[in-house]
């Protein structure tokens, strides 16, 4: 359980209340844009930074409690922290890096622990190398091994993939996911990359401008952001200011977004002024004559930009407002999507997510 506040002179004030499952395989992603205070939260948990106020408890152990004046040093918390650029000890070999945190074990047990850890991370062949001789992905495995060897009760990962180049990142992402699943260890992972969050996380906590905005299962946070800040942070590509013009009984509403009418699910309890969020992945593009389609929202528009993004392409369609869509590049080629082309976009009503903007 983490509950803390920290202010920086001249910087943002960070507030965070978060509960992690203390046991079992669960990766909680602390997600937010750069400078949102994610790393600070992680450092507070590790004991490298002291919150101004609050409490950090792990199971029945109190690591920090400002009211009771408790502040355990990092040595006694023993959280397995993986630094963003790995921070390997440059003067020690891979084996010595991994063995660094288990110096208090008797000789035989220590050697066994180091061997186990090296084997787990497939590092046996690199045991005698120094960090300078390792590739980015190898460094990451060594850093992970060093953090895991003392058997920490919680694993803290600070942007574990951001120090890698793009192709390595893609392979290591799935590898890290498998490893985390195998370790079955409570993990708090900090990232600003939504793909990383989607790929590695089970639960997600969104932090923005120093405040924790939403915590929940990862699909919920992505599919149903609690407020506009979360929607922006997790990357709902299209956020529209709209007005509810007709509430139907079947739980659907008609909204008016700058002259364009859209059908959306009624989330309940919203005022007439809303933000409509449409995830780019949920927009379907079509070209030429269209038959009958189940999707309620049919939007005609002109392509105003096409941006390749890895295997995908992000397309912005001007249909009264700017609608972002993500399609595969193959689809982009098949449909011959170019700037200035006229296309039809389909959005199913449940994909138009409404966030109330009114309120007292």
């Amino acid at each position, binding site marked *: 359980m983490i509950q803390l506040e920290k202010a920086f002179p001249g910087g943002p004030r960070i507030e965070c209340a978060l509960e992690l499952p203390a046991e079992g395989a669960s990766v909680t992603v602390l997600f937010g844009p750069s400078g949102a205070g994610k790393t600070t939260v992680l450092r507070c948990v*590790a*004991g*490298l930074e002291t919150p101004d106020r609050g409490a950090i408890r792990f199971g029945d152990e109190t690591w920090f409690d400002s009211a009771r004046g408790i502040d355990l*040093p*990092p*040595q*006694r*918390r*023993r*959280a*397995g*922290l993986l*630094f963003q*650029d790995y*921070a390997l*000890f*440059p*003067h020690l070999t891979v084996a010595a890096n991994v063995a*660094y*945190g288990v*110096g*208090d074990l008797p000789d035989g047990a220590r050697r066994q622990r180091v061997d186990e850890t090296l084997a787990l991370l497939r590092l046996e062949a690199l045991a005698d190398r*120094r*960090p*300078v001789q390792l590739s980015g992905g190898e460094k990451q495995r060594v850093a992970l091994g*060093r*953090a895991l060897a*003392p058997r920490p009760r919680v694993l803290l990962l600070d942007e574990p993939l951001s120090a890698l180049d793009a192709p390595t990142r893609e392979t290591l992402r799935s590898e890290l996911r498998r490893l985390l699943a195998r370790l079955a260890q409570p993990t708090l992972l900090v990232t600003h990359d939504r793909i990383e969050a989607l790929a590695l996380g089970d639960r997600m906590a969104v932090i923005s401008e120093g405040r924790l905005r939403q915590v929940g299962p990862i699909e919920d946070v992505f599919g149903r952001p609690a407020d506009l800040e979360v929607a922006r942070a997790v990357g709902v590509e299209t956020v529209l200011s709209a007005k509810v013009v007709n509430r139907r009984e079947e739980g659907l509403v008609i909204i008016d977004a700058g002259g364009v009418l859209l059908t959306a699910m009624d989330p309940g309890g919203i005022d007439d002024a809303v933000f409509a969020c449409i995830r780019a992945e949920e927009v379907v593009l079509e070209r030429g004559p269209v038959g009958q389609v189940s999707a309620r929202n049919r939007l005609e528009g002109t392509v105003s930009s096409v941006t390749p993004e890895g295997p995908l392409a992000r397309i912005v369609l001007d249909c009264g407002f700017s609608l972002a869509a993500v399609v595969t590049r193959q689809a982009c080629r098949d449909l011959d999507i170019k700037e200035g082309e006229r296309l039809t976009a389909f959005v199913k009503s449940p994909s138009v997510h409404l966030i109330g903007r009114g309120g007292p």
Partner: protein
Amino acid sequence: MDWQAVHLSVVLAASTTFLLLLIGLPIAYWLAFTRWRWKFLVEAVVALPLVLPPTVLGFYVLVALGPRSPVGRWYEALTGGTLPFSFQGLLVASVLYSLPFAVQPFASALGSVDRRLVEASWCLGVSRAGTFFRILAPLALPGIVTGMVLSFAHTLGEFGVVLMVGGNLPGRTRTVSIAIYDEVQALNYSAAAQTSLFLLAVSFAVLALTYGLQRKAWAPWPIKW
């Protein structure tokens, strides 16, 4: 050449260097890692011997160590001797005089070690002292060696402070630089030239060694990567 003076100078320089390692490293560690806002005052005090005339420093040390000062009285009660005009008094003065030559390289070397390495060590359960010996000291070694070499060389060549605090007692406080001064006063130029050349050669060798050690190509491991 006055071998007695050479011997005394070398013993003094070696002892001073050893003491500065013991005293200078904790000060440097504190300077490198403290977040105290008045830290610059301590830095200024440490650097004072760089700008103060040796006579001024010598004068204060003399007064502070004299039999009428608390330090002097305490030392006399403890050992029965007095500090001024003794080797021990000279050692105290030398340590103060060479303090910046040790502390500044130590502090900058410790400060340039990536702070996250230190934090990683703490998170792995290793104490602050353990982290110092296993991470900081090995990675700051070139800077620590530089500080030691500079302290040694600086002590070898000191003159003003020695004269003020130690005087000129052969075998006890007469160092190489004083010996040279004496020879010149006595118009004994050839002896002065010999000793001067010796000091010049030693100083050059020591500095060449220092700068050689700082060459990255010879470092036992890359400091940055």
